[in-house]
């Protein structure tokens, strides 16, 4: 028996227990719920990832402990 026939049989079997959704109509406007969700979960504005802070910290420490690298860094910028 091939896959297509298996599919047909299984579909028939499933339909014994689970019928297609008949009522898929939305009954109310969800915009108020959407606004509540936006209020509850505001998006962080311009959030800097932690690894950017880590890189900045490493660079700052390097410049502090090895100030001689500052002219070299400026030269390469």
């Amino acid at each position, binding site marked *: 028996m091939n896959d297509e026939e298996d599919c047909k049989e299984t579909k028939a079997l499933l*339909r014994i227990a689970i019928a297609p959704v008949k009522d898929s109509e939305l009954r109310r406007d969800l915009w108020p719920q959407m606004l509540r969700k936006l209020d509850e979960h505001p998006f962080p504005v311009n959030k800097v990832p932690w690894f950017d802070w880590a890189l900045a910290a490493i660079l700052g420490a390097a410049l502090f402990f090895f100030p001689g690298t500052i002219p070299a860094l400026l030269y390469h910028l």
Partner: protein
Amino acid sequence: MELLERFAAGDLEAFESLFREHQREVYAWVVRIVRDHGIAEDLTVETFWRIYKSRARFDAAGNFRAWARRIATNAALDHLKRARRETELPEGLAGPAAADPAVRGETRERIRRAFFQLPAKYRLVATLALIEEEPYDNIAEAMGISGALVKMRVFRAVRILRKKLSSLVAEVATK
């Protein structure tokens, strides 16, 4: 500026217009996957929250409807993964399933249980393809995968179900 451009730029009014235009369609898609009104409403809102969150990545020249459906499908899939071991498969939205009175409730329950135990990604494609009879191409577009992969997942789901329900399969085959 066009509506989609204003939305991509973060204009809340443009987002509201898009929400009102597409909420019914997103809901109708999601409810066929999760088969529960309340959960489908929550997932519709979750879908649009994800849409708003990733608005900067949206190409204003692109197809908003297809993009929204893909995000909705992902949200529904995430829900199925979470809910797999927590809740039973809801049946409140389905029409009358078995017209055959000879089919016992116990049999139906066995089929439902086997279906509910499918891994989420197989259950999603099996629900849409086998129960809702959605074309493979539509499912593929909504999931962001190829039609061939959808077909493969349907066949895998069928194999898993046939293994679990081998005795029932034989009964149905003889009818």
